[in-house]
């Protein structure tokens, strides 16, 4: 058998010469079967590809120009709504929306793989330098404002919270670990340990909350639950009586409480679109889009539309404050 397996090249050529034609009695049988199976295989392949061909041909609306738009989870749903509505404004341009966090968007901008990066924090000096090193000059656009709401369980009776209290709950050197230390008694809860809900560290929300509440040099206390999305934070606070979390106002639901935050005069301010817009709410922040250099062509038209009344009405409907006055 070994000999058969490794016949010389000459052997094989000889075998090719004594070709199989003229032995159709024996081979006919096998060829039929091969052919039959081949046809079956082709049918299966066609069955697999057919729906794609039909669906693509039937509904495709011509070749669209793509604008890549990726980043902040805070902005991703607004970005989606803009993209959805822009389809009617200019059907020849498709806005591809992706999430992942401000860090994801910014690093994609540095790599040059997006046209517009969404971010809920501004780019750091080091990030701008990295982008410039790649020949990209990111330009910042403020497209809206977001109130970073403090969420607790619906049964939590807390009336308001100060930035100092938040720092004491979240900060590395903060003392508060139980609700009773803040003078809060949550009904029906024996273990009054504060469940601190936070975000993953490439989130712009994570960075903005740290900078604003814990200070520029501040660090989070270990043991927070770091969630991978704005909605996850709210979901967890909804289900956990001892939880406290921060997330964009737009993610508020009816099943969770938003805690008013004390401003510098000690006056509690409820997070709303209005208090975010006039900046009376202490932890409201601008939301950014970054373009690679001065936008041109379709990207400029899209950005202009976002900043127009029509685009800003969409961000308002999503629960964020617009950058222009809308009646």
């Amino acid at each position, binding site marked *: 058998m070994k000999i058969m397996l490794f016949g010389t090249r000459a052997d094989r050529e000889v075998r090719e010469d004594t070709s199989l034609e003229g032995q159709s009695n024996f081979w006919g049988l096998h060829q039929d079967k091969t052919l039959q199976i081949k046809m079956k295989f082709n049918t299966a392949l066609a069955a697999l590809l057919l729906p794609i061909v039909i669906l693509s041909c039937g509904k495709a609306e*011509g070749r669209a120009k793509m604008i890549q738009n990726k980043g902040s989870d805070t902005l991703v749903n607004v970005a989606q709504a803009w993209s959805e509505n822009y389809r009617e404004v200019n059907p020849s341009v498709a806005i591809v929306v992706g999430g992942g966090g401000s860090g994801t968007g910014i690093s994609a901008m540095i790599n040059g793989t997006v046209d517009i990066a969404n971010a809920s924090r501004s780019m750091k000096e080091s990030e701008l330098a990295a982008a410039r090193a790649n020949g990209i000059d990111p330009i910042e656009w403020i497209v809206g404002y977001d109130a970073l709401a403090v969420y607790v369980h619906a049964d939590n009776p807390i009336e308001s919270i100060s930035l100092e209290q938040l720092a004491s709950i979240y900060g590395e050197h903060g003392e508060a670990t139980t609700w009773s230390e803040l003078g809060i008694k949550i009904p029906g809860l024996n273990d009054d340990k504060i469940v601190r809900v936070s975000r993953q560290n490439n989130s712009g929300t994570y960075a903005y909350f740290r900078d604003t509440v814990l200070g520029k040099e501040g660090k989070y206390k270990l043991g927070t639950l770091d969630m991978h999305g704005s909605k996850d934070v709210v979901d967890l606070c909804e289900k956990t009586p001892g939880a406290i979390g921060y997330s964009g106002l737009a993610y508020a639901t009816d099943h969770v409480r938003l805690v008013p935050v004390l401003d510098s005069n000690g006056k509690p301010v409820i997070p709303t679109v209005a208090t975010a817009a006039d900046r009376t709410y202490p932890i409201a922040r601008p939301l950014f889009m970054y373009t690679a250099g001065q936008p041109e062509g379709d990207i400029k038209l899209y950005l202009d539309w976002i900043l127009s009344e029509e685009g800003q009405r969409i961000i308002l409907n999503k629960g964020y404050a617009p950058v222009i006055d809308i009646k």
Partner: protein
Amino acid sequence: MTSSFTTTELNRKNQRTETLFKILFGMVTVTLIIPVAVILITLVVKSDGIFSWAFFSEYPTNGMTEGGIFPALVGTLWLVAVALLASVPLGVAAAIYLSEYAEDNWLTRIINLAIINLAGVPSIVHALFGVGAFVLFFEFGTSILAASLTLAVMTLPVVIVATRESLQAVPQSFREACWNMGATRWQTIWRIVLPNSISGILTGVILEVSRTVGETAPIMFTGAAFFLPFLPTSVYDQTMAMSLHLYVISTQVPNVPDGLPYGVALTLIGIVMILNSASMAFRTYLRGKKKW
């Protein structure tokens, strides 16, 4: 036959042990059905009222809380088709080499080890490899091509192993008979070995499809978009995909109606189950034609 054969105490004891273990293992096996049944029933019950023709044929609307899953469905088909085009020829060719040509030497052993290791690499690592290799290095950008190639690399071991197993299941005597008729090695492979192992190869392909349909991590950085208001028109476009769409509406989008994620999940499972059943039926059909 007379009744001289009487059961002893030992016989009865053995019989009891036999029954005990049969029942025990049987029960363990039956419990395996429970998770599958619970998942399916939950999906069916909770997705009640979601399905309609519009669900499959329309774009998502109103912040992805209404409308259908059409672009995600088409996108998944694109991803699977391109991944198959890349991985099946490669995988089958590699399996033919390993099964029919390769000698048992250090190189073959290293290749086999590499295949096993490739199968064990977590999908997120494949995803990052895909970003580095296909998106950035080959400059395909985030595109169907990059995503599908990532999926192809990930599922290559499945195709190779399934194909190799089914090639090796073809009796050696078939090959020897063919060689003795004067056929070359390639003629033997093309006319005898491949036709007789096609059912096993197809099973491998279908397994690959099932896995490709469900994967999220390898595509989320390489080609699948959160939202895209158009269908892809070439492999250089990005696309929406069922698996990522399910992830997104379950974790990122506020105010999604309760039934919607369940409906998407059921559709996803439905595709996989239909493919699996089809492959099983096809395999049974081909097996019936086998001549040994």
